[in-house]
């Protein structure tokens, strides 16, 4: 390693990373990335040194990264690998280790590029699977992590997204981890610290909490809760279990009432017949109603502000005032959202911006507009 430092850089792409912002829930990717490299490096070292049964002392500690910057674009964390630490922990091995880690990085990138082309590794070590299951677990639909400077077989930069993670992990094991944020109803609770939450998507989900918090939920069976979890899904996206609980809270009674009012409104509008507007106006399409329900689940906090109307094309529109803006989220008949609005006390406007679905990209813009 001729230079004192070597850097690895990742690029997080998605609206939520704009302006070099790296949400705390993806920071855990960085140690996972380092662990991945270490696991590949160990495999390579073992393959090159059949005669040695153990790794050199200090092997793991020698591959120590520091986060030294997060640059613009959307967010590009820069990881620094110090030669000084490597020389201290693995005297005499520095150059060999550098080559090993460089090759490991190339191998990791090639594995992920292979997934894009339906080529999968025959096997991965438990250490690699463990690190892979953590690396990118906080990604949402529409977001990706690019390996800066890499080139895939298509000539473009290689990236990891939710689809590639799922494909890779479930190819080598049965399940993968993913983020799940939504609302549900409290269906049961156990003194030992477990809540049972009834969800629309996965049925009853067990949520472990600190037993000291159980009294907060006691007496609220049937009440609405909102949660943020890391869950385990199989290759068919069936629920297998909860891996981590980031947040779970009761939604207060007023908010629950507002949510019920919004859901009843969607249901009422769904029953409008074609021609509801003096002969014009298509019936509200099911995908639009589903997308409206999803927005209510994902962003229930604004339920008191939401006013919901049909559109002549068979969609639905949410109109609401918040954060000094009069905003609209309009779902077309296919459920694709569009957001726009005007500043209440000035000339600023958000021009209509369309999205493919109610995905992370949309939610990031929604959160920005609403000041969440």
């Amino acid at each position, binding site marked *: 390693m001729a230079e004192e430092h070597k850097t690895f850089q990742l690029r997080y792409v998605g609206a939520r990373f704009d302006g070099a912002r790296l949400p705390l829930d993806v920071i855990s990717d960085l140690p996972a990335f380092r662990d991945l490299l270490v696991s590949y490096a160990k495999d390579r070292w073992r393959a090159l040194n059949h005669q040695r049964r153990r790794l050199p002392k200090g092997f793991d500690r020698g591959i120590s990264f520091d986060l030294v910057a997060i640059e613009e674009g959307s967010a590009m964390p820069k990881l620094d690998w110090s030669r000084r630490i490597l020389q201290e922990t693995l005297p005499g091995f520095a150059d060999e280790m550098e080559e090993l880690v460089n090759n490991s990085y190339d191998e990791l990138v090639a594995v992920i590029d292979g997934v894009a082309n339906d080529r999968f590794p025959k096997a991965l070590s438990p250490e690699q699977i463990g690190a892979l299951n953590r690396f990118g677990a906080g990604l949402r639909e529409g977001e990706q992590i690019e390996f800066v400077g890499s080139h895939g077989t298509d000539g473009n930069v290689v990236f990891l997204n939710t689809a590639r993670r799922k494909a890779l992990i479930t190819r080598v094991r049965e399940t993968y981890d993913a983020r799940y944020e939504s609302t549900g109803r409290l269906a049961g609770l156990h003194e030992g610290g477990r809540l049972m939450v009834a969800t629309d998507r996965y049925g009853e989900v067990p949520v472990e909490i600190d037993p000291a918090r159980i009294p907060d939920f006691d007496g609220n069976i049937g009440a609405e809760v909102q949660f943020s979890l890391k869950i385990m899904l199989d290759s068919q996206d069936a629920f297998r279990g909860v891996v981590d609980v980031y947040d779970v809270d009761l939604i207060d009674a007023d908010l629950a009432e507002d949510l019920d009012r919004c859901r009843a*409104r969607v249901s009422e*509008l769904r029953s*409008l017949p074609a021609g*509801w*507007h*003096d002969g*014009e*106006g298509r019936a509200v399409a099911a995908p639009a109603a589903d997308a409206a329900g999803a927005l209510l689940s994902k962003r229930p906090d604004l339920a008191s502000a939401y*006013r*919901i*109307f*049909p*559109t*002549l094309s068979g969609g639905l*529109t949410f*109109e609401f005032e918040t954060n000094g803006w*009069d905003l*609209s989220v309009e779902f077309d008949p296919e459920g694709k959202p569009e957001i*726009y*609005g*005007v500043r*209440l006390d000035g000339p600023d*406007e*958000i*021009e*209509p911006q369309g999205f493919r679905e109610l995905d992370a990209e949309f939610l990031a813009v929604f959160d920005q507009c609403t000041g969440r």
Partner: protein
Amino acid sequence: MHGSLRIMSDQLADDAEILFRQVHPSFIQGDEPSSQPFLPTPKDDNKLSLDRASLTTALEAHALFTSNGRQSVAVYGLSVGEFGAERLPCFSDPLKATVEDPANPAHAYAEYSMHGIAQQKNKAKRLKQKALARGRLHP
């Protein structure tokens, strides 16, 4: 515009004149209207139908609008000047009686055609805010 026969169109010059707009029941929730009543529909050919307060009242305009089965649960008002501030010129557009519709000498419209649909949506929002500030004029 309902297919009625137009007589002539002159641009309205009195910025203070109020123009009435009817609101369909599905476009109101609680006491708040959607911004959609302030946006021409595709069949309106970029012309938002209005009634002139100098020639009719909110009550009469509502009665005439609903007389042939069309629905309206609220009448809101915007001034010619408020439309003008959004670069939406307004024109008188008296309608003669047809087999389907009675005559409407107070009919007028705001012209949206110089703006794309994206711009129109936010203009409708600003107009809704101004109409809300003035308050419901009928019933």
